[in-house]
């Protein structure tokens, strides 16, 4: 089988912004060039992709803990006060029979962040180990991870709307909790982590000569 022809091997760089293919101006130490068409800085691969993705990922893991322990909102009515974490909110929804909404929230707020963090960790480890295992499937996994991340923001928006609607003073009031801030941070940081990961690194390993 003939080795695949990539832009990098031909000494070419594909612009990440406008996709124009330009020649690579020089070797290491050469200042990065700007794309002649759109002006974006050209990189053969995303800069420091692995180190940046790891740091963002670790930050997301750390923030994930307070995001789940601290209450995301506190609702006060004349009769009682109730603080809800993400998980207790889901359980409350199931208890009151709102299982379709419970499923949406469970999927968006519990499943997606966990899946995302695990998948990105797995992809990073696989690149470090120069794995040859199913590169096409791993690329697809990356594509899905990048696409679904935004939907985790649902819970943050639910809290925003409840805060906006329910402020009747002593009768009924909803306040946002610190958990919501940490949770929003997890979503944003893991979206950034997905964007700093370069899927081309998965393929670079496939082109190394076999021993």
């Amino acid at each position, binding site marked *: 089988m003939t080795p695949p*022809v*990539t*832009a990098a091997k*031909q000494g*070419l760089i*594909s612009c990440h*912004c*406008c*996709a*124009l*293919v*330009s*020649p690579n101006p020089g070797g290491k130490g050469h200042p990065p060039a*700007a794309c*002649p*068409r*759109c*002006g*974006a800085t050209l990189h053969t691969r995303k800069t420091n992709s692995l180190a940046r993705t790891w740091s963002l990922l670790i930050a997301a893991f750390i923030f994930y803990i307070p995001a789940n322990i601290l209450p995301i909102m506190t609702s006060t009515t004349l009769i009682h006060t109730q603080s809800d974490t993400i998980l207790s909110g889901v359980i409350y*929804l199931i208890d*009151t029979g709102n299982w379709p*909404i419970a499923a*949406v*929230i469970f999927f968006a707020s519990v499943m997606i962040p966990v899946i995302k963090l695990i998948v990105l960790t797995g992809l990073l480890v696989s690149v470090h180990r120069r794995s040859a295992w199913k*590169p*096409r499937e791993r*690329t*697809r996994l*990356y*594509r899905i991870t990048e696409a679904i991340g*935004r*939907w985790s*923001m*649902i*819970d*943050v*928006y*639910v*809290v*925003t*709307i*409840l*805060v*906006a*609607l*329910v*402020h*009747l003073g002593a*009768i*009924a009031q909803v306040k*946002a909790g610190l958990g*919501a*801030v940490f949770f*929003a941070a997890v979503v*944003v940081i893991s*979206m950034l982590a997905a*964007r700093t990961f370069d*899927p*081309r690194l998965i*393929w670079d390993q496939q082109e190394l000569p076999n021993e």
Partner: protein
Amino acid sequence: MPRETLIACHECDLLYALHPLPTGSKAKCERCGAILYQNKSNSLDRTLALSIAGLVLFVLANTFPFLAFQMKGQSTETNLFTGIVELYKTDMEVLAALVFFTTMLVPLIRLLGLVYILLSLRLNHSPLYLRRFFRFQQSLQPWSMIEVFMLGILVAVVKLDQMASIVPGIGLWSFAALIFVLAAAAASLDPRLVWERQGMDL
């Protein structure tokens, strides 16, 4: 010299020669399955029309009442901005900023940017700062989250349904329509066509 006849897959870097495609079809990378490029019918005109419609809807969504909440004879009326203001007042500035950014500022910048750039190209003007502006507004795309916000509204309304009555307003309907218009504008835009109208700095 840049090679305008080549394209490299953005997910696996495999190099291909660019071939003209029939309208409405797309070229996929045979190695990793990513979409390389597409030929969308009437891309720029459609996107321009949808963006103008989007701006009108954006104004409506922000001027008319969004949701009204009635409970025990009291009621509150909200517009899009109320939640952000309430979060800000209760010392949740970070959250307020994030919600403002993802549901109002980014969608507005995207709509204004598309109208400005596409209208200029349509009238054969060369807009000032086009390259920088288009690059900036393309990079904002993942941070426009109004469709996620809409699902959040639905969840919140269902949650409150047992204890109070919720009355949707014109703002909400405009906002719902805006989601489809923005999604259609994003789907019909082929950024390559905008870039191909640019000269090169050589």
